């Protein structure tokens, strides 16, 4: 199992693109997606990282322990992670009304 497969990737280019987007971010306890990182520790593929168009998923080493860090704030609510995760780690809902990404072009 390749554990830290995404650690060397420069995520700067994709994160820079998100700078042009407008978000109304809900508080963390109301995050619309919750990821159970303990399940990710043994995931054989981390296809969430492959699929997510805005790189909300990062599998980091924190204090010597591989840890899935999920940033709901950058989410564009496409639903891809809920499809790619077959391990049951992703609980997916739409944000509460008016919260989340707001496209101006679409």
């Amino acid at each position, binding site marked *: 199992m390749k554990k830290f497969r995404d650690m060397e990737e420069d995520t700067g280019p994709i994160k820079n693109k998100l700078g042009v987007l407008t978000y109304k971010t809900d508080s963390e306890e109301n995050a619309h997606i919750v990821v159970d990182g303990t399940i990710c520790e043994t995931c054989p593929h981390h296809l969430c990282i492959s699929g997510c*168009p*805005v790189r909300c998923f990062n599998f980091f080493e924190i204090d010597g322990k591989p840890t899935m860090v999920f940033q709901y704030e950058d989410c564009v609510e*496409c639903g891809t992670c809920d*499809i*790619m995760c077959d391990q049951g780690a992703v609980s997916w809902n739409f944000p509460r009304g008016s919260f989340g990404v*707001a*496209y101006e072009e*679409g």
Partner: protein
Amino acid sequence: MTDFDAIVVGAGVGGSSAAIKLAQMGKQVLLLDRGQPIGSKNLSGGVLWGNDLAEILPNWQDEAPIERFVLNKKVGFLSEKDATVIDMHFNDWNSRPYNGSIVLRAKFDEWLANQAKEAGVTVLDGITVDQLLLEADKVVGIQSSNDTVKAPVTIIMDGANSRLTLKAGLRKEKNMSESKSKFMLGLKDVLALDHDKIEQRFALTGRQGVAGEFVLGNIPSNVKAGGFFYTNYDSISIGVVVHLDSLSPEDRTYRILEMFKSHPYIERLIQDGEGIANLKEYGAKLIPEAGYNMMPKLYGDGFLVGGDAAGFVFSNGLVIQGMNYAIKSGILAAEATSQALDKSDPTKTSLKLYQKLLENSYVLKDLKKFKDVTKMTKNKNLFKVYPGAINDGFKHAMTEKGEPKQRLYKTLLQSFKQRGAGMFTLLKDGLRGGTKL
């Protein structure tokens, strides 16, 4: 006691069309959307094909915020560095009713929801519908946080990522991870480019526009993806659609978009629009691709399902259409709802009419006829062999090498063979896939 005759969940083009049609038939309608303003959650590649909206809004092509009308369509195969593109100019597309309207959904859908308001629909934005309201197994309305609203019929138009059909168990799959082979992800940049430059570059005048769609043979992994670009008035929508079941752990969907943009042929077309300073927007959206094979229950006691939520997308590898199917299904849902209301029978017995209307329209006729098209659109050779072979073949035939020339078919066959597709593979793919087109 009900609050409205009908509730429509989701103000995309399908939901708003359903609401407008119902209002035009004298019904009291509530249209709900989670975006604020309406349109801010909506995204698509960019072309609304056809003229279905004329049935409810005869002058929509004059009044709606449309970026450009497609006059020129390009369909092509990209290999590592080369491109072979069929360039289509159909003169009829230059006049009303226009065949293809390039739109940006945040603006277009807000306008359409305003048309619903003007038609008498109660439109509420910023409302996420949590679930359907059930009484004795019948849908009697919706629930949003602590509020409930009741109506005899609820029309579910909550999009490709339809949580309502999922929660209510109307889909074939119990959870989304079972439907990896049924969805593509679309990712799109909107790049600022001055309208003069667009018109010069593509030889356009006024509101003429270009739609380009490509098979991507330039992605160095097992990914199956297509690319597209559409000229807006003063920007270009450029994106990719990725088959989710073709992704490997090493892939990144957002990198596939950058690989498409940096192909030498595409790079020329978006010149002066690339770079973060010109990025107006970036976004992504699921696209249901399995059509007929992924349809949820389309009707039942007190509800109907349409648009992307019902999987109403037509895709054959070179063409992806969803908005026209959504609009048509919305209008038909409104007709079935209206008749059921007039009979005071909002049960599946009356609402079954929706299925019948769909079957008699191009919506289900197309999806049924092309239900096996994924045999071709998911054929690995379409992405990994043919784009390279086509480009190699034409390149050899067109390049002057100062050597005796060979007949074109021989050159092409050789290229296919070199890329790994001999006569037998070609025949097999042709029979299996070509006839499904």
